[in-house]
């Protein structure tokens, strides 16, 4: 018996209808299947959260439900890859990159198997669900694993493009994605190239290097700052490993300040990756790392958290002004 509900009420299985941005993961996988690739998708009881339900409905034979057993899922994905399948397994980034870190290291990366790991709801996107569901260490742990590529798409179209491009990328990959509600940065026909940053603009005062959900607010912050007379460049750095070193070095030659922006601990994340490049080369610019400063997030709705941690456009602009002051 179904209750008659007032408009605005919703339940978990309605997430996709409510949130079409979740389709990009499944759409990317469907593109690969249509191109003849032996995709197998796995989830750990989160097919509505990550949108894989769409893929599962289209290809039930290529979909594996693992239940709440993330480590088992990652190790099994490695086994699947040995049989010629192209496995994509998805769960919350906090579980994938921390709970399954050792399975990723031993079964996926050390073995060089082409497993694709989708860590979704990264950073503080899960807001008041709390620290257990936040992933502000995943770039750091995944980047430290030899042979693992780390990709943080800025939006759904870029994720879909990166998934398509992954068919030609031989290494195992960790994709860091958000919750499918991110504002769109790119058109649907965007092309993805592993290892290449995207220079949206150049500037002599400051270059913002952002990844993932922070690309959109960084672009908006730059507009605000330009209106104030500053020269601001923006680089989207979706591949955190291998990092586009030449783009970092060019920015550090051109700008007084290079500022990284990430929804992640500044220790070990994008800021650290950029710092490593700048520290090893002659660099004119000063580096400012903006993100979560080695702390656990407060509880709040996501938009409140982004404002609190100055990871929205006004916050990023304010951090730039302070750095230049």
């Amino acid at each position: 018996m179904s209750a008659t509900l007032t408009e605005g009420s919703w339940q978990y299985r309605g997430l996709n209808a409510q949130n079409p941005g979740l389709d990009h993961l499944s759409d990317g996988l469907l593109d690969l299947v249509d191109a003849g690739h032996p995709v197998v998708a796995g989830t750990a009881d989160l097919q509505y959260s990550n949108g894989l339900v769409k893929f599962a409905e289209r290809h039930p034979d290529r979909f594996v439900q693992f239940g709440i057993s993330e480590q088992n899922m990652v190790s099994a994905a490695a086994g699947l890859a040995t049989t010629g399948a192209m496995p994509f397994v998805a769960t919350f980034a906090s579980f994938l990159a921390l709970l399954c870190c050792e399975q990723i290291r031993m079964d996926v990366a050390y073995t060089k198997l082409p497993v694709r790991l989708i860590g979704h709801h990264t950073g503080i996107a899960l807001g008041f669900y709390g620290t257990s569901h936040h992933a502000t260490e995943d770039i750091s742990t995944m980047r430290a694993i030899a042979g693992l590529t780390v990709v943080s798409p800025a939006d759904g179209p870029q994720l879909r493009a990166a998934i398509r491009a992954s068919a030609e990328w031989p290494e195992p990959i960790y994709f860091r994605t958000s919750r499918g509600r991110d504002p769109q940065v790119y058109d649907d026909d965007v092309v993805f190239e592993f290892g290449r940053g995207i220079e949206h603009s150049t500037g002599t005062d400051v270059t913002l290097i952002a990844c993932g959900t922070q690309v959109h607010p960084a672009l908006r912050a730059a507009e605000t700052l330009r209106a104030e007379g500053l020269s601001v460049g923006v680089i989207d750095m979706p591949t955190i490993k291998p990092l586009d070193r030449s783009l970092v070095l060019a920015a550090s030659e051109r700008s007084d300040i290079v500022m990284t922006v990430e929804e992640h601990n500044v220790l070990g994340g994008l800021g650290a990756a950029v710092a490593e490049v700048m520290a090893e080369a002659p660099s004119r610019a000063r580096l400012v790392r903006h993100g979560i400063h080695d702390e656990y997030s407060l509880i709040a709705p996501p938009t409140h958290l982004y404002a609190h941690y100055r990871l929205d456009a006004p916050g990023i602009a304010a951090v730039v002004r302070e750095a230049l002051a």
Partner: protein
Amino acid sequence: MHSATTLLPDRPTADDASLADRATFVRTEAIRLIEIAKVGHYSSVFSAAEIFAALYYGVMRTDSANPAWADRDRFLMGKGHAAVGLFPILADLGYFSREVLDSYTRLGSPLGDHPDMTKVAGIDFSSGSIGHALSNGLGMALGGRLAGRDFSVFVMLGDGEMQEGQVWEAALAGAHHRLGKLVAIVDRNGFQLDGSVDDVIGIEPLGDKWRAFGWEVHEVDGHDASAVRDLLRALAERPADAAPSCVVAHTKKGKGVAYMEEEPGWHLGYLVPADAEAAVAEILEGGRA
């Protein structure tokens, strides 16, 4: 996706005597290789020697000339520290040379204490971190069924390994997905590093646990190589959508060298050449008995 398997070759057909001989070979070769490293897992190999021999000489379809053959049966070791007992078999079957075998643990050798699929032909999956292997095998069985291939996946687990939570995640999933080609073999030798499994964290009633998880459970004397062979051959023929099987192989840790059978400390150790020679003599004597 469904490329049906056609005309698989016959399974290997070692008779009872040659299986016993190969189990003896596993033990004596492990002693010889451990002399090179000057440390190794003697008693972990000795409990599994008949199982190794039964699998490779009496059960599994493999092809050393084509180690990546897509239809081959797979073998994984949760207890990867017993790899020094498997390497001599792989060399014997022609996966790599005796020269490579004798480079065991030396600088740059593909052969270390744990098996490495990226370095050693014939190793179907790397191991070393206990608890992953049944999940790895689960993925292989899923992939085989998806691809319409008929291979079986044998996963040897230590009894101490039953303490790892991931094993039971894989046990649930194997039964749920009805992976009839997945066979877990528990080397129930009773000991782990810190003592008796029952004293460290008990695992009984083991068969009941696997049954409760939805697996078809068989108990066998793990040192009766012929019985192990016959059982595993039968299990390899189960339909791909049957319940998975678990074989509890009752074994003795250190089997073949009396003082090792009585002392769990021989999980890891070293025998100087004179003692190694005596141990080999005892094993050969037992093998003839």
